[in-house]
Each structure stands twice: as structure tokens, then as C-alpha cells.
């Protein structure tokens, strides 16, 4: 392969990255704008960050978002892991194909339909819309993502590990908690993180299933933007981007370091 920097390569990379990141960069820059007009640069300032933290409405929404995210991600992880286990382990039960299709359907289901159907359900059973229904809805749609992530790990899981544990005297439940769970834990954690991320940035389903007093940050931002974008919103988004970026970078650094360590260990082992 020719790895040199041809003009074509450079152009492609610049265009690609510009397409992806230019809007974000603009948003970050304008969050430090002195002017109240979003698209006119009026000098550097951090005043919008200060006013953001004084905006009780936005702060309440952020708090709701985090609570919903934590609770729904955790419950979705438990349910999703159980679904993944059932689908990979009990391969011969009747209707398995149908069941696995049904678990993954929400992945491709338009959010509007998921949201609307959940709303109809909540109304039908007479549940008051609010924090509880919001959390339920988030669990519903993020569970299948967890199931996919965990299932892909379980497919490559060496079943003889469990057999070895049982052979050495561990009953099935102990085997699960001492062997299976620790081995698939990284996949479960990524599943949780995925579910959390999906939950904190969901707008459509939240709009359908939320009620008074349970407005999430995306909903709040969206409703404010309809009244005109304020630099405050830019600041809020910049903080969100910062948190996500730090998380992603930290995770990849940890992974990278672990990979390097592992390689080094393996080479050392080969040398004896």
C-alpha cells in the first residue's frame, strides 16, 4: 500500500473532517462570544457559562437527564445482559429466532413510532407521565443496544471456562458470578455506557413519554432554540461535548495502554 500523502488523500481528509467537525467547532467558538447575537462575533467572554449555571430551568433539566440516564442505563444493562444470555445460551428453545428478532427490532424502529406507541400504552394503563414513564421508555429502547453489545461478546466466550468452573465444584450460579460475569464485564460496561449516552441525548422518545416536571436537557434546549438560539445554549452544548470527548478519549487511552501491556506480557512469556 502506498502510504504517502498524495494531494487526493489530503483533500479527502480535510473535507471529511471539516464536514464532521466544522459545525461543532463553530458552536464551541460562539459559546465564548461576547455578543448576544449568536452569529456575530463580539469578542471573547465566558459570561454565558456563568449565566448558564444561574439558569435554574436548564440546571433542573440537566439533573433530570442525569438521573434518567443513570437509572435507565443500569436497568437496561441488567435486562439486556439477561436477554443476550438467553439468546446465546439456550440456542434450542422454541421461537428463538422470533424472539431475537423482536429484541433487536427497536434498533431499526423509527423513534417516532416507539415514542408514540409507548405514549399510547402509558395512557391506556393510566400511568401519569413524568420521571417514571420517561425512565421506562429509555430502558425499553436502550435495552436492545446492550443486548447486541453483550451478545457479540458472548458468542466468542469459551464455554469450557464455565465447564471448568463447574468441574472444579462451582454450582451454576456461582459459576456465573465468579467466571462468566467477570469475563464479559468489559462488554457489559460498554453496553452501560452506550445506554447512558443514548439516554442523555434522546429527544424524540422523551418528548412523547415525558410529562410536567420531567423535562430533559435535550428537550429544554430544543424548546429554547425554537424561541431563538442563545449563546447560553451554545455553552451548554460545549460542556456536553467536553464531557463526551473526555470520556471517549479516556476510554481509548485505557484500552490502548492495556493492549500495549498485554502485548509486552505475551512477548515476555514467549521468551520464558
Amino acid at each position: 500500500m502506498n502510504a504517502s500523502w498524495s494531494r487526493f488523500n489530503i483533500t479527502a481528509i480535510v473535507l471529511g473532517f471539516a464536514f464532521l467537525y466544522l459545525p461543532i467547532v463553530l458552536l464551541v467558538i460562539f459559546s465564548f462570544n461576547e455578543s448576544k447575537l449568536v452569529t456575530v462575533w463580539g469578542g471573547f467572554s465566558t459570561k454565558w457559562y456563568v449565566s448558564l449555571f444561574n439558569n435554574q430551568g436548564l440546571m433542573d433539566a440537566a439533573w433530570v437527564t442525569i438521573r434518567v440516564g443513570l437509572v435507565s442505563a443500569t436497568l437496561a444493562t441488567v435486562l439486556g445482559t439477561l436477554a443476550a444470555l438467553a439468546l446465546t445460551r439456550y440456542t434450542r428453545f422454541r421461537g428463538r429466532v422470533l424472539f431475537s428478532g423482536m429484541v433487536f427490532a427497536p434498533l431499526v424502529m423509527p423513534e417516532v413510532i416507539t415514542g408514540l406507541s409507548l405514549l399510547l400504552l402509558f395512557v391506556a394503563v393510566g400511568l401519569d407521565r413524568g420521571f417514571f414513564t420517561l425512565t421506562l421508555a429509555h430502558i425499553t429502547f436502550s435495552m436492545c443496544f446492550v443486548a447486541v453489545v453483550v451478545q457479540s461478546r458472548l458468542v466468542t466466550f469459551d464455554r469450557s471456562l464455565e465447564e471448568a468452573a463447574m468441574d472444579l465444584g462451582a454450582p451454576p450460579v456461582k459459576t456465573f458470578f465468579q467466571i462468566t460475569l467477570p469475563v464479559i464485564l468489559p462488554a457489559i460496561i460498554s453496553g452501560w455506557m452506550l445506554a447512558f449516552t443514548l439516554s442523555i441525548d434522546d429527544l424524540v422518545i422523551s418528548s412523547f413519554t415525558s410529562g410536567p416536571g420531567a423535562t430533559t436537557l435535550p428537550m429544554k434546549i430544543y424548546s429554547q432554540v425554537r424561541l431563538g438560539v442563545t449563546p447560553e445554549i451554545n455553552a451548554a452544548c460545549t460542556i456536553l461535548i467536553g464531557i463526551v470527548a473526555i470520556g471517549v478519549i479516556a476510554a481509548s487511552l485505557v484500552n490502548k495502554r492495556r493492549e500495549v501491556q498485554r502485548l509486552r506480557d505475551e512477548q515476555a512469556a514467549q521468551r520464558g
Partner: protein
Amino acid sequence: MKSLGNIRREFAPWNQPDAKPYIQFKNVTKRFGDFTAVNNLSLSIYEREFFALLGASGCGKSTLLRMLAGFEEPTSGQILLDGQDLRGIPPYRRPVNMMFQSYALFPHMTVEQNIGFGLKQDGMAKADIDTRVAEMLKLVKLSQFAKRKPHQLSGGQRQRVALARAVAKRPKVLLLDEPLGALDKKLREETQFELMDLQQTLGLTFVVVTHDQEEAMTMADRIAILDKGEVMQVATPAEVYEAPGSRFVADFVGNINMFEGKVAERDGAGATIASANGVTIRTANAGDAPAGTEVTFAIRPEKIKVSSKKPEGGDNVLEGEVYDIAYLGDMTIFHVQLGNGQVVKASSLNATRGTEDPLSWDDKAWISFRNDAGVVLTR
């Protein structure tokens, strides 16, 4: 009858009529859907025996092992261990331990924790576990690796951790599934002897599954040769090699030349065999095959002598031409084509450097063998 092979065996409970088998398979059948993995199989294994299940892949040997361990239940039949019926006893309550082909070391635990895992499940006191683990580590010479994780070990070291973990609980029976399959040739040979020593030291019963006949021959007291879920022969390595019970066993173990033919004439214990392609063979032991029976005369390559000159006298002398030569260093294998077109393999040990009687391709050659060198097979 003289002893087969050159090993004198003092341990041979299978020859004692009053010896009680330790493990018994009684008419065991195992089906997976339409596929019959084990077919009405009966087998006895004795205490402290090193027993090998040998066969090609899919012959049911691993299924037998997994039924002993408790991962599979027989479809019908009975498995007894020390007189106790194992049916319905889950793997975690069976007094057997298994060493897995993939080793199945727990990746998130250190070597120490791996070895101590089974002891912990038994609720052994921490101090006792530590003592036993240290003892096991010493046994497999891995004491300085106690704190390492499995991925920090070489293949040979992992194999020894798996072994130490499987014997740490002092099981009644140790099951080994292709224990040396993942090692390279040199390491495998060394490890074979280590395994045998370990078995002697611990006084355990070993049941090993292997597809490698050399491995089975080296290590086992007795070998069961399996094919399509059935036992073809159970015997000591020497018996399996020198007195195979059937054409399948003769062909499966080692190299062999086969002459299809009929018993032309009986002469006491011996007989004259007329092969279908016109060779007459005199043998001193033809079993109980009466004259006229279709038989196969089978003879191992190393029992056939090749020479460029016609040997004086001798029981069986056949003329041919050198068709192919394989020089292996320690020995040379000659493929000699007889007048009737059949190719006979004869190997000669290169006991000295160079030979008085060098043979080349297409040379005229005589093969000769004694009348007690081959076996007559009726099955």
C-alpha cells in the same frame, strides 16, 4: 506365549479375575439428535490405571470423557465410578476433574487463584488452600509464576497450570482431553514423561483422550481404540501394536502391510496363506482360522528385511524391485514392489553410519520375514 513387546508389566489388574473395575461403562449409548456418538459401549477402567481413549475425530472419545465429567448424560446405559452410579450427579458434585483441551484457564485470575479455585469451592480454609497451591506450583515447577495472569504465560506453562488446577483437588479420576494437543513436538515429548511421573507420584487414575497414537502408546497402561462410537480393541500398547484384533486396529495403529487371501492349509498352529494376488505366506500362528477362511495377513514394516541378494533359507522370501525410498535419519523405509504389483513397506534401522548393502531406486531387492513376524486377521 512369549510376552509381547519388551516392557515387563507388573501393574496389570485387568488380567486378575478378582480385580474390581474402578470406572465402568455399561452398554452406554449417547445420541445427539440423529447422530449416535457412542453406541452401546462397555468398558472397564481400573484404579491407578493410565487409560487412553484413542480414535479419529468424531469417534466418540470426547463424548465418553464428557459423560464421565458430567457435562453430558448417556441416552441409555450406566456409568459407575467406584461402584456408584453417576446418573443425575451434576459435574460439580463428581469426584473427577478434567483438564481441558483449551486449558480453560480463568483469564481474570492469577495462576495461584486458578489453582486454588476448586479448593475454594470446597470451602477449604485459606491457609490450607495456600499450602496446597504452593505444593501444586512446586509440582509443576511454576512457583515463580504464581502471581501471573494466564496471558502472561507461554503455552507450555499454561498447560502445566491447567494440570495443576485439575489435580489440586486430588480427584479420584483425572480426565485429560487432548492434554498435549496444543504443544509443539519437542515439548510434547517431554511433557508425556512428566505426565506419567505425575500419575505415579499422585497415584491417580488417568483417563486421557487423544488422537495421537504415539502419545497413547507412550503414556498409557491400556488403550481403547474407538471407531464410530464403538470399542474396537482394549489392550496394552504392545498388544495393540503386535496383536491387533482386527483389520481396523492393525491399519489404524502404526504402519502395516496387508495381504488379503485365504488359508490354504493348516499345519498345527501355523498355516500357509495364499494371497489373492499370488503370494504364498507361511505363518507360525494362524489363530483358529480353518482352511478355506478368508483372512488378512498383516505384517509391520520393521519386521521385514530388505536385501539386494537373495537371503539363504528363511521362512518367507519374496522378490521385487525398489519402488521408493524414504530416508528418515534414524531409519529408512523401502517401498518394494513385488512381481504381482503389490507394494510392500519395509523399514530398516540405521544402526550404523552407512550400510554394507546400499539399495537404490529400481534395484532388484528381496524381502524376507520370519514365520512369527506377522498376524492373521479374520475380522
